[in-house]
């Protein structure tokens, strides 16, 4: 197996929402290339705690790239250097012995810092609440095969539905725009017949909520698509724009 590496970490530490934060430097010996990035942070935290210092707070849960809990701006990139991967799936073999790695939280005003690298993304839930659903109640729905959907359409809807709601799109965007996130849900439901009845209100309400939360506008730099761990396409943003115009004008 490959030998161990020495890494220098510069980590954003901030005691709470309104505290002043700063980058702290930690020297990390004995990093195995097979460790995940978060396991490396676990190791740093155990060392800090044994020394009597506070552990670095960071959000994480499934560590399989699907729950969307982990975040982290690593060396200036959302979820680190790899394409199509969430931070929890990033392994230390993507770095080299002697590297300095800068770790920051998502930086966007609609995502205020809670502590260190943990931010509050509840704005995303409030956007979903503004129509990110099909209004069906439990029971009384037609048989599943009564709604045939061409495979190509179902696949396209799935590609949009794969969004994990991590917020990397917002963090990567210079305008802190949430258009990729919003468009993924609007697209999924606009493509499927089930979402058709409410498509107008959905586009209008979700965009209005996005604006109310303080997310910026889209200026088509495609940084969101480049950093999205699920590689959600910006073509969804074009579809959101069409849906929005259709709702407002037609």
């Amino acid at each position: 197996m490959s030998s161990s590496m020495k890494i220098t970490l510069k980590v954003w530490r901030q005691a709470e929402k309104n505290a002043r934060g700063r980058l702290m430097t930690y020297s990390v010996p004995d990093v195995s290339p097979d460790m995940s990035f978060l396991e490396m942070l676990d190791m740093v935290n155990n060392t800090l705690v044994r020394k009597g210092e506070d552990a670095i707070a960071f959000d994480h849960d499934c560590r399989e790239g699907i729950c969307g809990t982990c975040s982290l701006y690593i060396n200036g990139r959302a979820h680190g250097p790899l394409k199509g991967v969430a931070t929890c799936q990033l392994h230390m073999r993507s770095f080299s012995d002697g590297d300095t790695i800068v770790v920051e939280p998502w930086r966007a005003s609609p995502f205020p810092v809670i502590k260190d690298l943990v931010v509050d993304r509840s704005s995303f839930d409030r956007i979903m609440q503004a129509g990110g659903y099909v209004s069906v109640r439990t029971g009384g729905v037609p048989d599943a095969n009564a709604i045939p959907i061409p495979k190509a359409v179902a696949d396209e809807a799935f590609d949009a539905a794969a969004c994990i709601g991590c917020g990397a799109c917002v963090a990567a965007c210079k305008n802190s725009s949430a258009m990729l996130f919003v468009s993924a849900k609007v697209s999924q439901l606009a493509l499927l017949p089930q979402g058709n009845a409410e498509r107008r209100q959905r586009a209008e309400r979700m965009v209005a909520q996005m604006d109310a939360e303080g997310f910026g506008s889209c200026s088509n730099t495609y940084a969101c698509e480049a950093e999205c761990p699920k590689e959600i396409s910006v073509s969804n943003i074009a579809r959101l724009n069409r849906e929005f115009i259709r709702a407002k004008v037609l």
Partner: protein
Amino acid sequence: MKLNSKIPGGPIEKKWDDHRFHLKLINPANKRKYTVVVVGTGLAGASAAASLAELGYNVITLCYHESPRRAHSIAAQGGINAPKNYTNDGDSVYRLFYDTVKGGDYRAREANVYRLAQVSGSIIDQCVAQGVPFAREYGGLLDNRSFGGAQVSRTFYARGQTGQQLLLGAYSAMVRQMDAGKVKLFARREMLDLVVVDGKARGVVCRNLVNGSIESYVGDAVILATGGYGNVFYLSTNAMMCNGSATWRAHKKGALFGNPCFTQIHPTCIPVSSGHQSKLTLMSESLRNDGRIWVPKAKDDKRQATDIPESDRDYYLERLYPSFGNLVPRDVASRRAKEMCDKGLGVGPTKLAVYLDFADTIKRNGKEYIEEKYGNLFDMYQQITGENAYVSPMRIYPAVHYTMGGLWVDYNLESTIPGMFVLGEANFSDHGANRLGASALMQGLADGYFIIPYTIGDYLASNKFTPVDTSHAAFQDAEKGLSAMTKKLMGINGKRTVDDFHKALGKVMWDDVGMARDAKSLKNAIKEIPRIREEFWKDVRIPGSDGNFNQELEKAHRVADFLELGELMARDALHRKESCGGHFRQEYQTADGEALRDDKKFSYVAAWEFKGVDKTPALHKEPLKFEYVKPAQRSYK
């Protein structure tokens, strides 16, 4: 205590219909006078919260995640079962019922399993109506695949992300009710005590994980949908925050714990590579549709997998179980993999792995076929191991995945504490001693969408509720108790981290209470776990303060509970002197290495009553009767 399972009489296919007719109803205008507290927002919790709010109840929902959509149901990969028989291959409600009872090695309640099979078709309808993008065929209709323990294709799926899509469906139904003001969400709250007033569950006490404050939530009934406790093993496929605290603390308040030793060890996980590992990653069971499991015939075969010719390979599942082949149930596949590795035939650097090989399917159907079906799994495998499974076979090994055990509930999903209902993985109900693949999603959603909305109404209609608020002594006492425990944890100020203790516990659990257990190992665990627990309470170190966001403190609460729960698991495993499903006692096996049940002595649910930490728990038994699927030696040959 006499356990009353409340299983209705009559023929099995009529039980649920008759029971529903006899359940009391609450008129629509009166439903808004009741409040239900739902803890957990996975498939079971979110579907329950949404369905109850749609009926008109006020729902308070709590989750320790930052958002309900993060719940661990999201990580389920393979699929969800339903006997729609869209594939015309002979499926029926009765067959799914039969497969599930047999798959659970005759340790589940027939009536519950039948109901599960009955409502499962409606789940697929419901999810499609919500816009869940299930896999489809070119004609636009839904596609199916096969899972272990079944000879029909009844599994609906959304690539390798079925759990994600179903959870987002349930989440969307729940946010719709938040939009309507009927569901009030409190995120980043961890339930750490249950409050019982006049013998009825009336609310919960939580720690606010952002600012550390202790908060109470009051209702007329409480639903726990808080998942399983597989993380007692430290390494498992569960998410890092999955824990047993909500159910364990309810257990300490009087709820009996059913079959705690029934743990599922999933056969196809990425093997442990070294001591820094924080969790294990599942490779979906669906891969066994197209992958073949093998080991080299000779020990210490140093050749690369691709250089080993067919004649030197042992496709041992196909050899031992010709009719089910690679699709035997999980407990069987896991045990056989361990047996091969114990014989020295394991592969890879640690020799604790077997091959899962796709070469034949790639040759037959092309790489694109595999990519389309399992692309995300192959990507995940590559990220973790650095290896390309399209070129050389995956290496897999069993890992802790799911807990069939959980809080004991009756047919109405009500625990032994009146007014506290338990749904999904958190209860013990439907899977017996082994859960079949693609049945967890089915059970979580069945409980939440189609069972609790009926049974909770009967409870609310049948009882009178005195108005209670958080100033009630029971709430005040619970708050004080939690505050004292937190202060005690913070005050130990020892030398070892929470993770150190969790790893020490996990090692005992895996070595002594894991895939193969015997009286000696279990007795050792019953001695070792209290010793680790004692050290924990003397020497754990938690940094920071209890008045703000403190993840080490969160973990400490969870590990403190695991250190008690683990002991109960060992005691349950020791008392059950038979092997069944995932509970494999080395002493009790057939000549060809299959689990040997003792139906005369152990055909019951073991429900344990808490008597105090360091005190022996009391065992209560709910006898299991099999009127339809007669217990037999399971055969997948």
